[in-house]
């Protein structure tokens, strides 16, 4: 066992990379749930985004186009969910589960020709001098743009929910859709937009895995990140900064336990592998003991009958 092989600077830098797909998907889902919709299809939208982004960037040679395609792919799949739950008034839990199963199958079909292909690499930030600074450079100034976008998105969602009119209407819709309707807000429209946003975020998170973190395509490569994102939103009490914290905690422990495994620590591998899940949930459960609760209309079907 050789713990000195673990470089703390590289550890922090790589935990940020490991956390980003989770962060993106969870922030999207947070917005969806704040509008009162429970979309359990995050995993499906991520994996569709992963293959859509992968395929487009391989075909065009542009990682940026790939990322955009991933967002469109995730949003398109979420359209299906929006149609089922907002217009056909189907049960949200069942529709979400169906979306995940459908997405996993669809992505396997789409990805058949892409196994073993290497995608074009995404440029990382490289500011002369600053990016070469010891410690600060590798941690803050030498990542890919999507990672920064994830942090920016967290801040933007926090700001929008707390300070803007759109955020207020979104929260109101999720809190009490009957009251929002009585005041003349378009409940269905707000929710469809939120669902599309959530789909795009999940798609981007998926593409981050296939284009940047792993860079390759394998079937089912999101490996449950979508489900972790769902749990993260709940345990983070629907608060954006706590989602960020939870994602980084999860990513950090994941990277750490991989390093520990490599260093040959005398703990069975199974315990190390489960540690990110256990520790993230324990921390967030302790933090979520305040009185904030789920949006009042979460998962309830709205129909303007009155």
């Amino acid at each position, binding site marked *: 066992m050789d713990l000195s092989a673990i470089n703390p600077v590289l550890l922090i830098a790589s935990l940020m990379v490991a956390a980003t797909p989770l962060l993106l998907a969870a922030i999207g889902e947070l917005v969806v749930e704040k509008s009162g919709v429970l979309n359990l299809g995050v995993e499906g939208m991520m994996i569709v985004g992963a293959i859509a982004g992968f395929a487009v960037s391989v075909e065009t040679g542009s990682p940026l186009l790939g990322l955009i395609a991933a967002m469109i792919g995730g949003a398109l799949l979420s359209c299906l969910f929006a149609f089922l739950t907002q217009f056909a008034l189907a049960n949200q839990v069942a529709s979400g589960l169906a979306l995940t199963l459908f997405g996993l199958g669809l992505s396997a079909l789409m990805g058949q020709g892409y196994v073993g292909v290497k995608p074009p690499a995404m440029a990382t930030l490289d500011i002369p001098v600053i990016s070469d600074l010891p410690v600060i450079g590798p941690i803050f100034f030498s990542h890919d743009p999507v990672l920064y976008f994830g942090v920016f998105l967290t801040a933007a969602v926090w700001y929008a929910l707390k300070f803007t009119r759109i955020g*207020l209407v979104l929260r109101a819709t999720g809190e009490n859709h009957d009251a929002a309707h009585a005041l*003349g807000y378009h409940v269905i429209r707000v929710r469809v937009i939120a669902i599309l946003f959530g789909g795009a975020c999940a798609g981007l998170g998926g593409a981050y895995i296939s284009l940047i973190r792993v860079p390759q395509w394998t079937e089912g490569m999101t490996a449950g990140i979508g489900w972790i994102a769902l749990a993260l939103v709940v345990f983070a009490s629907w608060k954006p900064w706590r989602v960020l914290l939870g994602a980084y905690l999860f990513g950090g422990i994941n990277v750490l336990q991989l390093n520990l495994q490599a260093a040959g620590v005398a703990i069975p591998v199974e315990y190390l592998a489960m540690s990110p899940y256990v520790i993230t949930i324990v921390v967030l459960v302790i933090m979520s003991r305040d009185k904030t609760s789920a949006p009042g209309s979460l998962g309830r079907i709205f129909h303007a009958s009155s």
Partner: protein
Amino acid sequence: MTGTLLSIQGLTKAYPGVVANDTVSFDIQEGEVHALLGENGAGKSTLVKMIYGLVKPDTGRMVWKGQEFAPPEPRAARASGVAMVFQHFSLFDALNVAENVALGMENPPQMRDLASRIREVSENYGLPLDPYRTVGDLSAGERQRVEIIRCLLQDPKLLIMDEPTSVLTPQEVDILFKTLRKLQSEGTAILYISHKLEEIRALCDHATILRLGKNVGTCTPAETTARDMAEMMVGDTLQTPTRTAAEGGEVILDVSGLSLMPSNPFGTPLKNIHFTVRAGEILGLGGVAGNGQDELLAALSGEALTPSDAVKVKGNAIGHLGPNQRRDIGVLAAPEERLGHAAAPNMSLVENALLTGAARKNLTSNGFVNWKDTTSFAEDIIKAFDVRTPGSDRAARSLSGGNLQKFVIGREVMQNPEVLVVNQPTWGVDAAAAASIRQSLLDLAAKGAAIICISQDLDELMEISDRFGALNEGRLSAIRPAAGLTIDEIGLMMGGAHDMEVSHA
């Protein structure tokens, strides 16, 4: 009063199976207070929803200041100057007061400016409110202030108020009326819906009366007796509750030294409450909303457990028993909040009848539900209490507030309780139905039940109670015979229960 503000001409709106409004016409003048009267289900709510743009009329038209007026959505109605205080469903519990107000405005200012305007307007009109408190923690009366302030900030030309006083104390009603008269003097017209005919007589210039969706007449409230107006609404002579004076029997319910910390952090703790209720007696408990009414009901119904000695029925300590065990021995309760507390909104009336009636009506055996008996129990309630619904299979939430209230009270009364605790038994119920609910409580008492009626409506308490007490900050005043109490004395009891407690102890 310079001219016609809104003219309603032949509005008709039909829903499957029911014509909610049938060629209704009337005019609202600028700066007048116009009352809209009618029983539950007479079509008042549908009519105001059409004015507010929530519902589109099938035929007929509206004219606003000489212009055709057909708001496609509430936003358009608000832009024209229509504001509405809803009876239900328009506040967001998890948001704060300022956010709730902002959601009802077209172009709300910055939150900080809005908060200071809320403070300013609310103090101007004597309705103090903290803009940063979460609405879910406010009392019913305070929530209504939020609704009213939300309207006032928009400088409305027409303010629609759907039963605004049903949750207010007499003092708050006085304040509200001052507010409304001030608005009227500033030229705002008010369309006022209420069941409380005396209020309408005191406040309104004209009244339009609806019955089964039709306009059946108009009157000048100040020159018409409440009884005549009630009879126009019902289309029949009104029965006033009558009581056969039953002298107090043995003590059934004995509450002593009841103290309770509320389960909800914003509730009111009960402090050392003592009272007894005899067989055949109705104890009326008044007090401003949020002074421990909900907690007292919870302690008596068994939702909140107390030391077993604190609550005794016929000498047996029952403070430690839960609601179903109490139902077994005949202690029943009908809480204030109809949807969600007294009835499960999405379950049918039959299922709701089962929920509290299972034990006393023997509706289950060996864990199986006897649906036949349950259905007939539900139908008996519907029949005996004149609950207007297409059938007992309808969901509780589909009933209008007053009809559901009749069902909820009827469900408990029909189980022949030994002790019945009711909170706001006639909230939002029309005059005729309120009279029949009160009559059923009196009849139940005459049969020997001990009844505790918690209410905000002092007239109601004076009408049916034998003895009267008031709750204030979780303390109970001395209990006094209701006959001969003056309004001043009652006001003193409601405001000064602390001082009373000294003489009581």
